[in-house]
Every structure is written in structure tokens, then in C-alpha cells.
């Protein structure tokens, strides 16, 4: 570790020996962290490593059992979020805390000090000041626009603006890029660099290694509640960081190998699907996947991918078109019939669709097969068969759990996803539909799941992989299709595709200039 | 839990208790004040509701308490939570050595008769019910009443009132007060004989003053007991329409607390109201400024007299009728006489009629007494 000679003044933030215990687990074990003025400090670690707990301590949401926090060299006690905000600490959550029906300006001033002093809010004055504030940091944002009309990237800027409005000196960003396109990510990085140059300190939480290397001045790696190491970007590599995080050697890119596509397995013809507002979200999607082939669908979130998948899998009614699986028209099949027809599905929102978090592991492992032998005879469940199968799957899919009786919500995100993968992969499949299968997972779990996908493909399954993570699509797909406003606008070979070209299709839908028509799919 | 939440909880809990603790006033009567050596233990099994309901529960209990005070006996009451407590509450008194059990109201009728049959050594009083038994002394659910309750269950007294007599008095007051010659009466339901007798007496009484008087009658409900007897808001809403529509300037209510709403509506409409069962000028001060009279069942006197008769060994089985003859019913004093412009001779007319009832020379009910037929 190198000592910065110029750092004669105390760091903006020091956390010393922070320890936080929960029954049965030490979430933070004597963690030291210091962040200097004008520094972008990345906090890197797997899910469950203790990053969030540490930030909750900083934000006053959790009280440390041991350790001290110093701001500008002064020891402080942070009683709660409002106290943290008053001391210039702001957090930008992964899930935005914005009120969609209010304007940007209203969201920004909501709950801040200036409002509690008066009964009436001077909207004109507020929106003028907020517009000026945004401009001073070099981003354009209409202060009077309703938040609901903004893109995800713009909403994130509102969150940051909120922090700046409260004059945050220390800004914590929890996985800020998870929901952004590559272009938006680049824009937010520009903004963060500008903020740092302005003398603010930024804590950047992520597990995307290349991003961390790109943006951070310093990187602290946490594993199992402990600080494992501190690195500077130019002194380290993605591989080293990954190994620090996981604690063993990992392959960052699974070799997808050579595919041997067989007969067409899934054919989607002119599929039209409406979203929950009854707007057409999928406007005549047509594509084909062969047995033993991975088709990756790239696209900015919200371009109809969710609706496409839900229509294929039977969760949503299609308004037109056909889905043909292995020569059989399965359009309009229920989820159960699709399942019985040989389809596996890993939903994008695993907490909402994939798992019943309040249930034990073994129940989740039979969520789609509980009703049939060997797990049930007539209506009586066969607990022995369920438990035996669960134990076998826990072994086979390397699910890290104290036992199969464990309540699923207590597992880490990676292990939760492995539960879904075990349930969906562990039989012979014709089609595998994957929606963001590695979203929010750590590198170890990503590696494992990618291997399982490849294995499934090599066993002759047609794989539909939808991901907002362009890198994942690029790495995994035999063929890549780009979805834009409900249509497949491009298709290319997975091995030769160019990332920037795919990104361009994602952003504009093709080579024609970006359309500006009203009522665009958000 | 934060301290704040805890405080709020404690406050809430305490306020729940205030409501319940207040109802407990007079739950026991100290037997030490009048040591006359009486060994009576009097248990009063009330009906669902509250002991201070200004109605059957309250005045039955007060009667029992008066008797206990006079005799130096112990008295206690129990309020049931719902019908499944009736049997158990009566049995509870018997288990604890109570030797007089008073059941209040029609709903407890079967329970009291059953208990009387099962416990021949305990004295029972049932308020406002004529015990109806079959040949074996069990409750007769066909209501043909073939058995002679006074012989089969000699220690059971059924208190009944002659409502038409006081209804008659109310009719005299109403007809004497009315300037328009149109008076009203509001009953709970038309299937309840006690209600109907009041109303029938009222009509006859009014006609005795003014043969051409118009008596408008309405019922609060065709069957829902809550609307009939337990819903003052409904009573007020209903009456606020009834009064101007029918153009009445006096109204007589026979509908429990629903009827209290009718008295409120009378006040609002600037007309006069007549109360029922108890002296409502006293028991319902909300409307006392427009109550001129009440047709009273002397519930507490009836209960008290019945218990005293048991203590004295003079109690007979069967129905014990309370009427003008034994002062078991009667009119309240006249109130607001000047404001209402009551004729000076009104009290005299009431006294004369009451004396005639005592003498048994005044017919206060039509032949089908207790059965409502729309006039």
C-alpha cells in the first residue's frame, strides 16, 4: 500500500475497525476504510461480503458493535439517515427513491431542510435553482419534467442531483451502472469525475471489475466481512481483483466453445404482445433458435424483452403471432404446459417470479414440479422424495447452504439464483429461456451459471438469453439479436460481433437516425 | 419497539380500559351495610349490551340491588358477550351458591326455564317473559304452553307488564298536547307483542280525549333488531322524515335506543316527544327539553318486588303480572308543561284513567291485544 504524500490533511472519511455482528454471522469484521477528498473509492466484493452493511453503518441505518467513524478527522456518531445527510453524506440507491408523479425539482427538494422551514414551496424558484445546479455540473435536466417520463439514466441523475442539492460531501453510489446502457454509463462516469474534481468524495460500490478499474482512484476489496486488500487501478488486473474477491482462481470469461446447432427448436413468428398499460411492447418479433445454440438478445431494458419472454413462457397473453416449439404450436400455453413441454425458465426478477423467499429451499426446488410424481401422489406430497431430490441438487449445483430446510431468503443472491438454475436445468430440456440470469451476482456465481448454460447448450437445448448486460450477451451467444422498440432490429454472429456496433443498435435501433416520435417505449 | 410506540400503545390500552372500567360501577353491593341475616345471594344474568344501558339491563339490575339492600342480601350481575354465554352465566351463579337468579329479557327465556327445571332448589325470576313449558316443565318450543308453569316450576317467576295501560296514558297526554290533531307513534317492529300493546293502548287513550284524532304509526324495521332497538342514528334519520311527512306534533317512541333517536328528531323538529319503558326525561337528558311524559314499566319495582316475595316465601310460580293495580306500570311526571302548553286538567285526567285501570273498569287494549293490524 502506498502512502499518498500529498495527504497531509485528514481524509474526508475514516472508518476504523468497524465491526457489526448479526446472530450467527459477523457482517463486518474490523473494517478500515478511508476516503480522501476528491477521491473516487471503489468498494468491491461479492454479494454478502459486507459492503452494504458497511454503508448502512455509514448512513446510520445500522449501529456498529465496535469501531469509529471520523469525518474530516473528527469522530462522529451517526444516529440515522437524516443525521448522515446533515453531515454531508448521501446515498444513491440502486432502486431509486423517487416519486414518479412529481417533477424533478419537486423530487429534489422533497424532504430537504429548506422545505421544512416553510409551508409553501416556491416552485419557480426551486426549479430555477435546480436547473442551475444541474448545469453547473454539466448535465442537462429539465427541472419541470415529471420523473415518470425520464429514462433510467436520467432518473439516476435526479438522485445524484438530490444529493448535490443537500450539498453532499461524501456520495455513496450502490451499483449505479447496473441499469444503464454503455453510453449512459460513460455519461455517469464523466459526471462522477467532475464531482470528484470539485472536491467531493465518492464511494462507488460495484462488482463489475472493468468499471471499477476505469473509474476508481483506489479500490478496497472486501471478502466475508474483512478487508482483503487495497489496490490502485494501474497496479492491478481484473483477474487479480476477481481472485481477491472470490478467494480462489476464477475464469472471468467462460469459453463458450464451439456450438453444434441442430434442427430449429424454437420458432417465433410475428409475435405481438401488449404491456400492462395495453401498449404494444412487442411488435411482430420473428426469430429462430436451433437445438444446441444460444441466441443472445441484447437491448436496453424496457424495449419489450420482458413481454417477449413472458409471452413465450405463458405468463402473458400474446396479441398475435405464433410460438412453435419443436414443431408444435405452443402459442398461448400456460406456464405449466410450457414447463411440461420441456421449457426451463430463469426469470429476470428472481425475487418476484423465481422464488418464494419465505419458503424453505426444498419447496423452491419443486416450485414447478411439486404436483407430479415422485414429489406428490394424488394430492399428498412425498416429503421424502422432495428432500432427497433437494439434497442431491444442493450437491450437484453447489448451492452453499447449511441445509435444505433453510429459508430461501437467508441465502445470498448467488445461491438463490443457483436454486432456480438447479430447478430449471436439472432435467432434459428442449428450450431454456434465461432472463438476466446473472444480474447482481458475484463473479464466482456468474462463472458457475455460465458453465451450466454452456453445458445445457451442448446437450442440445435451444437457449434464449436475454440480458441488459451487453458483455454477457457478447460472451455467451452463438448468435446475437438486438431488440429495439419491440422488434428484432439486427442479428449477427456472436463470435464476430462488434460491441460498439451492438451498442449502436441498442441505442438507436439501427443505422437510421434516432427517432424522436412521441409515445416511445420507455 | 421504540419508546414512542410503546407509549401510544399504553395510552390506547388504557383508554380501552377506561371504557370498560366505567361500566363496572356498582358491580357488587356490599352486603355489610344491612345485616338483617338474609342469606339470599341474588345473581342477575343480563342480556348482551351494557349494564348501564338505561334500559332493561340497568333497571332490572337496579331492582335487584334495591331488593338486596333492603334485605341485606348479596347481589351481582353478569353481562354476556353473546348468546353462547346465557346458559353458562346462569350456571355460573348456581355453581357459586347463588340462590336467586334473575334473567333479563326474552332472549334468556329458554335458558332460565331450562335452569329452573334443572335446579329446583333455586329461585328464578325472568323479566318480561311468560314462562311457557310443556307437560314435563321443559321449555315448550311450540309455544302451546301445555304445561302449567306455576305447578311444574313453582320457584320460577315470570314478570309481565301490561304495556297497553301506560300506552293509554301516553295517548291521553299526546292527544291533549297536540294542536294539529295529528300525533305519531314509532315502534321497533310490529311482531313484538309488547311493542304492539303500547301502541294499541296509545291509540285508545288518544281517542278517549279526541275521537277524531289522527294517529300515525310507523315501525323502524321489519325485522332487523339492531335497527329496531339499537340504532339511534337510524332512529333519528327515520324520524326526521316521518315527523314532517305525517305532520305530527307529538311523537311516542317504543323502540329502545333507536327510539332515543326519534326523541332527538322531535327536539330538532320542535315538536314534543313521549318516552317509553323508563322515565326518559331523567334517563335521556339529551332530549329532556322536549320530553313531556314517559310510559313507564316499573322494571326495578317489578324485579325488586319479585325478589322480596321470594325472600318472604310468598312467591308463586308462573306469571307475575305488573300493571296499574300493583303499580307495576305507570306514567312519569309531566315535564315541560308550560312550554308545551299542557292543559291544566291533564294530570287529573291521567289520574282518573289510572284509577279506572286499577279498578279494572277501563279497557285499554283492543280484543286482539298484542297483534298488530294496520288501522
Amino acid at each position: 500500500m502506498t502512502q499518498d504524500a500529498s495527504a497531509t490533511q485528514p481524509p474526508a472519511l475514516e472508518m476504523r475497525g468497524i465491526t457489526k455482528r448479526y446472530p450467527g454471522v459477523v457482517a463486518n469484521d474490523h473494517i478500515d476504510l478511508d476516503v480522501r477528498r476528491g477521491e473516487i473509492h471503489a468498494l468491491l466484493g461479492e454479494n454478502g461480503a459486507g459492503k452494504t452493511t458497511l454503508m448502512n453503518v455509514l448512513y446510520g441505518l445500522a449501529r456498529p458493535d465496535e469501531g469509529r467513524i471520523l469525518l474530516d478527522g473528527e469522530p462522529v456518531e451517526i444516529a440515522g439517515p437524516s443525521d448522515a445527510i446533515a453531515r454531508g453524506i448521501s446515498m444513491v440507491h440502486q432502486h431509486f427513491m423517487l416519486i414518479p408523479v412529481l417533477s424533478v425539482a419537486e423530487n429534489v427538494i422533497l424532504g430537504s431542510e429548506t422545505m421544512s422551514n416553510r409551508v409553501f414551496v416556491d416552485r419557480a424558484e426551486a426549479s430555477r435553482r435546480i436547473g442551475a445546479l444541474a448545469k453547473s455540473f454539466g448535465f442537462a435536466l429539465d427541472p419541470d419534467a415529471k420523473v415518470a417520463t425520464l429514462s433510467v439514466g436520467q432518473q439516476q441523475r435526479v438522485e445524484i442531483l438530490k444529493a448535490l442539492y443537500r450539498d453532499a460531501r461524501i456520495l455513496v453510489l450502490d451499483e449505479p451502472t447496473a441499469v444503464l446502457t454503455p453510453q449512459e454509463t460513460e455519461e455517469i462516469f464523466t459526471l462522477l469525475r467532475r464531482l470528484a474534481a470539485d472536491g467531493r468524495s465518492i464511494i462507488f460500490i460495484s462488482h463489475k471489475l472493468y468499471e471499477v478499474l476505469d473509474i476508481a482512484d483506489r479500490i478496497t476489496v472486501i471478502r466475508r466481512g474483512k478487508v482483503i486488500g487495497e489496490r490502485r487501478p494501474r497496479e492491478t488486473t481484473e483477474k487479480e481483483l476477481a481472485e481477491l474477491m472470490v478467494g480462489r482462481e476464477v475464469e472471468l470469461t467462460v469459453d463458450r466453445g464451439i456450438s453444434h446447432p441442430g434442427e430449429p427448436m424454437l420458432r417465433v413468428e410475428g409475435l405481438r404482445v401488449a404491456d400492462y398499460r395495453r401498449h404494444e411492447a412487442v411488435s411482430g418479433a420473428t426469430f429462430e433458435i436451433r437445438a444446441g445454440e444460444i441466441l443472445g438478445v441484447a437491448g436496453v431494458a424496457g424495449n419489450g424483452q420482458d413481454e417477449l419472454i413472458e409471452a413465450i413462457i405463458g405468463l402473458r397473453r400474446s396479441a398475435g403471432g405464433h410460438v412453435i416449439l419443436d414443431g408444435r404450436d405452443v402459442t398461448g400455453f400456460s406456464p405449466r404446459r410450457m414447463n411440461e413441454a420441456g421449457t426451463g425458465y430463469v426469470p429476470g426478477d428472481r425475487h418476484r417470479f423465481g422464488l418464494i423467499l419465505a419458503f424453505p429451499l426444498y419447496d423452491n426446488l419443486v416450485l414447478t414440479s411439486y404436483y407430479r410424481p415422485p414429489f406428490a401422489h394424488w394430492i399428498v406430497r412425498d416429503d421424502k422424495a422432495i428432500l432427497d431430490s433437494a439434497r442431491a441438487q444442493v450437491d450437484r449445483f453447489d448451492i452453499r447452504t447449511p441445509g435444505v430446510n433453510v429459508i430461501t431468503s437467508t441465502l445470498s443472491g448467488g445461491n438463490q439464483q443457483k436454486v432456480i438454475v438447479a430447478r430449471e436445468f436439472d432435467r432434459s430440456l428442449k428450450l431454456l429461456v434465461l432472463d438476466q440470469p446473472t444480474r447482481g451476482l458475484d463473479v464466482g456465481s456468474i462463472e458457475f451459471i455460465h458453465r451450466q448454460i454452456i453445458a445445457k447448450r451442448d446437450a442440445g437445448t435451444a437457449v434464449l438469453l436475454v440480458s441488459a448486460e451487453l458483455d454477457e450477451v457478447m460472451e455467451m451467444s452463438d448468435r446475437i439479436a438486438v431488440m429495439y422498440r419491440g422488434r428484432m432490429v439486427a442479428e449477427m454472429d456472436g463470435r464476430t460481433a462488434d460491441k460498439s456496433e451492438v451498442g449502436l443498435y441498442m441505442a438507436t435501433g439501427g443505422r437510421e437516425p434516432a427517432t424522436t416520435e412521441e409515445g416511445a417505449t420507455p | 419497539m421504540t419508546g414512542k410506540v410503546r407509549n401510544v400503545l399504553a395510552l390506547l390500552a388504557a383508554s380501552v380500559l377506561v371504557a370498560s372500567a366505567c361500566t363496572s360501577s356498582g358491580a357488587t353491593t356490599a352486603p355489610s351495610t344491612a345485616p338483617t341475616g338474609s342469606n339470599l345471594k341474588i345473581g342477575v344474568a343480563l342480556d348482551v349490551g351494557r349494564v348501564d344501558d338505561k334500559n332493561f339491563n340497568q333497571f332490572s339490575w337496579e331492582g335487584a340491588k334495591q331488593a338486596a339492600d333492603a334485605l341485606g342480601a348479596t347481589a351481582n350481575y353478569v353481562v354476556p358477550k353473546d348468546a353462547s354465554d346465557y346458559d353458562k352465566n346462569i350456571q355460573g351463579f348456581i355453581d357459586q351458591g347463588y340462590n336467586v337468579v334473575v334473567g333479563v329479557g326474552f332472549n334468556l327465556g329458554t335458558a332460565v326455564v331450562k335452569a329452573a327445571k334443572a335446579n329446583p332448589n333455586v329461585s328464578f325470576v325472568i323479566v318480561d317473559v311468560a314462562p311457557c313449558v310443556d307437560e314435563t316443565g321443559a321449555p315448550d318450543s311450540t309455544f302451546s304452553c301445555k304445561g302449567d308453569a306455576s305447578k311444574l316450576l313453582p320457584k320460577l317467576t315470570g314478570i309481565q307488564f301490561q304495556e297497553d295501560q301506560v300506552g293509554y296514558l301516553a295517548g291521553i297526554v299526546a292527544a291533549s298536547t297536540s294542536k294539529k290533531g295529528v300525533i305519531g307513534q314509532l315502534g321497533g317492529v310490529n311482531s313484538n307483542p309488547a311493542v304492539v300493546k303500547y301502541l294499541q293502548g296509545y291509540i285508545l287513550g288518544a281517542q278517549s280525549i279526541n275521537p277524531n284524532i289522527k294517529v300515525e304509526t310507523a315501525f323502524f324495521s321489519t325485522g332487523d333488531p339492531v335497527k329496531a332497538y339499537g340504532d339511534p342514528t337510524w332512529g333519528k334519520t327515520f324520524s326526521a322524515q316521518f315527523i314532517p311527512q305525517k305532520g305530527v306534533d307529538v311523537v311516542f317512541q317504543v323502540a329502545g335506543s333507536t327510539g332515543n333517536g326519534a326523541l332527538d328528531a322531535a327536539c330538532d323538529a320542535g315538536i314534543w316527544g313521549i318516552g317509553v319503558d323508563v322515565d326518559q326525561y331523567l334517563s335521556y337528558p339529551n332530549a329532556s327539553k322536549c320530553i313531556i311524559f314517559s310510559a313507564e314499566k316499573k322494571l326495578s319495582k317489578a324485579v325488586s318486588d319479585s325478589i322480596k316475595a321470594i325472600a318472604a316465601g310468598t312467591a308463586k310460580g308462573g306469571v307475575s303480572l305488573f300493571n296499574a293495580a300493583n303499580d307495576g306500570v305507570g306514567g312519569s311526571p309531566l315535564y315541560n308543561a308550560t312550554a308545551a302548553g299542557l292543559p291544566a286538567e291533564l294530570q287529573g285526567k291521567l289520574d282518573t284513567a289510572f284509577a279506572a285501570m286499577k279498578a279494572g273498569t277501563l279497557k285499554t287494549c283492543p280484543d286482539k291485544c298484542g297483534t298488530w293490524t294496520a288501522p
Partner: protein
Amino acid sequence: MSGLAADARRLLARAVNLRLLQVVAEPVLAFVFALIVGGIGIALFSAYVPGHAAFDVGLPIAAYGSLISGFASPNGITSTLVYATPLVLAGLGVAIGFRGGLFNIGGRGQFLIGTVGAMAVVTWIGKDAGPWITIPLALLVGASLGGFAGFIPGFLKATSGAHEVVTTIMLNYVLLFVMAWAVIGPLALPGAPQPITADVSTRNGDLPIILGRDGHLGLLIALAAVPIMWFLLFRTTIGFEIRAAGANPDAARYGGMKTRRLIVLTMTLAGFMCGLAGATTLLGVVHEMTPGYDTTIGFDAITVALLGRSNPIGVALAALLLGAMRAGAQTMQIQAGVPPELVDALQAIILLFLVVNVLRRLMARRKRRPGKGEPAAAAAVPVAGVGIE
């Protein structure tokens, strides 16, 4: 049968494991808390009880003492069981709703319509059919009418999304009036001076007494309902579907379950249990109805289900607790002069405490979510709500 033995073993194992202890701790705390607050309340208002000074600390002790003596005797124990019977049945009805993610506040109406159904059977066929046909049929018809009363809000929710809290409450009033109408109309006893039904014991409709003075056959029905409901919920695919749809309807749908149909089924079962409670109470305890007949079982059952954590065994224990309190209330009133409303107040405090606690945990969960739930930390808090086996 070895399966049953295994179940028993597993149950025993669960009883000693720590998680269950945590689960039990909260209801017990709620009860103790209620006793303390109630005791303070009694002491504060002791001046209203004749023979007691203001702030008499002895009064709460005397009150609780007589409360206990009220149920701690052979007759008291029978009374406790009798009072607990409808609470168990209706409590299971509310609990299965909770398991299915539905809040059945319609217990009152379902109970009353169940009473009407049983009364109708006894009134119309009891004389001729004899007890062996009358009683089972009366219970079945009563329970089924209750089930129908649950089906309606279930169907409305499944087809139109009408919230069951609203529809069941509204239906309570409808059914209250249906009951009053039935008692005044078709079920009224001709010749009675006031509307009243027949006494079921005069028409072969009364449940036989099997225990003590008034312990009727319904006790056995309640006793049997507990393991049956447990089996249904935890050992059958239907129970799994109900619980899954309750815990996460989206995941249940994705798992191939017909969630709308499950809503209807769950509400029907819930109504069935409450209707059975009504029928059992009529045939076993009250025996006759007047138009004013009413019950607080519908709401007490909510307390029971919450206190019992929607677990059938917990429901049975909670029902026994409330039943004992009710059995002792009369003695407390007579001996200590403390009104029986105290028992209602205690029940209300328990409910408040439980509800506040559930809310608190829900809020804690919400708070944690933005931080993406560091899973290790989340593990420390047992999952909120009703879903603990």
C-alpha cells in the same frame, strides 16, 4: 403409518428448535404485555369497583386470580374447551386465509349464515330424520353455507380484484340481515310471542354431551380439524399451492398454479370453517336463535390466527388461551367486580401488540430492501407476517 410417525418426530424436533422458540416468544410476550397493561388499567380505575380505593394494586391481582380460578376447575376446563371450540374452527378459517394471503374479516357473517344453515336443517327435517342424519347434515349444510359466504368475496376478488377486506365486511352486514330475516321468517317458531327459532334439542339437533356438564361433541370436531388442517396446509399439494400463492402470487403463477382459482378455494375453505364454527355453536351451545343473535367470533378468530401465527397447532393453543380467559371472565366479574370487558380489552391489547409488531417488521424489511438485503443480515430476522411453519 411410518409417514405419520415421521411427521410426529419432525414436529417434536421442531418444537425444540430455536426458530420455533422465536416464533412462540412473540405471542407470549404479547400476552404478558397485555396482562401488565391490563393490570395497570384495573389499578388506575379501581375506585370504580365498590370496596376498593383508588390505585388499588391488589385489585388486578384479585382479578387475575379469580380469572384463573374461573377456568382452573373441572367445570372451568370444560367451559374453556367449549369456548375454544368455535375459536379453533373459525381461527383455522382465518389462518388458512392468511396463509393464502387473504384477510378474511367475514368470519362473523360466515359464522351466522352457518348457524342459519344448521338451524334450517334441524327445523325442517330434524323431527323425522333422527339425530344420525340431522346432526351431520346440519353441520355440513351450515359449513357449506359458510363456504358459500366465503366463495362470494373470493370469486369477486378473482374476477374483478375487489378487495376481500371490503367485500367480507360488507357481506357481514348482508348476512346479519339474512340471518335476522330467516329467524323472523322461515325459521320462526309459530306462536312465539317474539321471533325465535325452535330449540334444536327438541328436534334431534343437539350435539351429545361427551365431557363434563356441557362439553359437547363439537370439541372432537375442533380437535380433529387441527391435524386435518395441518395436513392440508403442509402435506398436500393444495396446501402448498395455497401457501405459495399467499407468500408470492407471481412466483406461484410462474410455478404453474392457477392463482385466481386458489383465491376462490382459499376463501371458500375459510368460510367453510367459520360456518362450521357457527353450526357447531348452535347445535352444541346456544340451541336456539333470536333475530338479535350475533357473535364476535369473526373478530376473535383474527386474534386467534395472529396469535397462533396461522399455524394450526398455534391456532389451537391461542384458542385455548382465549377460551380460558372467557371461561374465567364471569368468575372474575362476580368475585372481583371487574367487568368482563377486561377480557375484551386484554384481547385488544394483544392484537394491537401483534399488529404493531408485524407492521414494525414489515417496515424493517422495506428499509432493508434498498440496501439489497445483505443476506447474512436479513437472516437474523425471522421472516415477517404469518408464514412460519
